[in-house]
């Protein structure tokens, strides 16, 4: 219990991940599914960034406070997550584009309805 409270970032991330995953699982609406995926991605970003953050330290771009190595947090996770966000956005965009296409072809974005109209 103690650990969950102390590592509240991580706890939050896991909860978010769960929310995202459940959304992904239980919703038939394609858009909602994509939102669920986004939530999951966000959870992972949160988790990752929290790993890079140490209480009381500064970002390495702030020059005045602590010039030593110990004074700064690790900038790498943040940097990585920037990349990650870009990737996630592009993925979402692509998925949404496909969703539009799907709507064009099937006339619905409810997956259970699509499932029922098998083409072959």
């Amino acid at each position, binding site marked *: 219990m103690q650990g969950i409270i102390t590592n509240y970032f991580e706890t939050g991330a896991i909860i978010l991940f769960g929310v995202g995953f459940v959304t992904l699982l239980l919703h038939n609406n394609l858009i909602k599914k994509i939102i669920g995926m986004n939530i999951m991605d966000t959870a*992972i970003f949160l988790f990752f960034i929290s790993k890079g953050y140490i209480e009381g330290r500064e970002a390495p771009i702030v020059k005045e406070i602590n010039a030593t190595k110990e004074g700064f947090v690790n900038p790498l*996770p943040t940097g990585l997550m920037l990349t990650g966000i870009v*990737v996630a956005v592009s*993925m979402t965009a692509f*998925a949404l584009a*496909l969703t539009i*296409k799907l709507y064009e072809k099937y006339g619905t974005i409810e997956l259970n309805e699509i499932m029922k109209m098998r*083409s072959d």
Partner: protein
Amino acid sequence: MIIKSFPLLTIIFLFITSFTMPLFKKDVISKRLSFITLSISSVISLISVIYIKFNGEIYYRVGHWDAPWGIELHVGIIEGIIGLVFTSVATLAIWYSMFSLERSMKERIGFYYLLINILIGSLLGIVYTNDLFNAFVFIEVSTIAACGIVVIKNKKENIKAALKYLILSILGSGLVLMGIAFIYSITGNLNMTFIHNELIKIHGQYQSTVLITLVLFTIGLGVKSAMFPLHTWLPDAHSNSPASASAILSGLVLKAYVFLLIKILFRVFGLEIISQYPLLDLILILGSAGMIMGSVLAILQRNIKRVIAYSSVAQMGYIFYGIGLGNELGLAMAIYHIIGHALTKSTLFLSVGSIIEQTGNHKLTDLRGVGKEMPVTLSIFTIGAFSMVGIPILPGFISKWYFALASIEAGKLLYLGVILASSLLNALYYFPIVINSFFGEENLKGRVYMSKNKPLKELVPVLVLTLLVFLIGIFNKGIIDAIRLDLF
């Protein structure tokens, strides 16, 4: 040495050329550009393989950053060979598609070649990179490119298939990213070599973290490489795309992910760590299940491309089987099977592609007697099928043989039965196709000999592939030895 930068060069080269393609109005130019760049990459890959053979593996630091901080490429002989196979198969597939793609689709031709270049570039990146996060990025790039290729035909099946592929891929890459986060949180490194050194020291303290990470990676990459119950996206995606795309998707894309999984399991964690968990057994079980069920599902199909797609599931099962055995030979054979299957499956898809293209039929029942109309193509298909079934000297047989030896070595005698059953099942769906197309009075009635034969020049790439299949089979010894040498 300039050669040391060749791996990076191929990746960048492929990316850059792909971005220039939209600049040209004519599809023909992008088509040729793609072909030329890919063939140049294959030559470069060949040179690097030869270089590695004589000078040892290459560690290349991108942008001169030192290892833990900068991105590093690590190209040993295994990576080299796989890179060579990827580029050359892609070259041949593109060569093939240069003649045939227009016949199956009218628009977005240029776009297709662009995606292919990106895809191959990113796959090479996955194979070469020694940096986990870098690998993740390449995975995402390749996913988008692959989905793009699937959806390149503007049909509703394609869109649905692509969407399914995309969603599952995103899920998979989400898990991978999560795994990377865990690894990073306990080791503070992204470079595989460094992570490994760190993990050796500390894995005792973080047992459950390591365990969860392992599962995240296995499932994440497993879904992308169609590990058995997670394969559901594969048949739809592969069977609906153009022939050359199917060849690349089935032959290369899957293999890159599974190779990354091998790298993560055995390079990042190391056999020492993973053998503490029953993970490998689970992989072995799923692999075996894939070998059997893939074939069984293939038997039930009526569309020839779906048959071959399901056969991919079974063949991926073999690779997972090799990983799951967890001994040196099994692993080496998994990698050999990656190579062998990449070539064989591309051969099969390309030959089937030309059959469908020429006859317009894709149902098994309609393809009876087609052997009389296009004997050359079907002979090629037959050779591919023989390899799958495991006729000696062809790579399929070599894999099966050594897989079997490896399972004896690992003391898992019961699993021999799986190998045998699976090869019998393979025979059960490949042979009827071959037999019904070549033989049978009723089947051959009304068919005109050689009437639908493809021009020989269009078949050249497939013939070259067939030749490569034979070579891989015949020179298995050298390849396997090289792989084993470089394994750990």
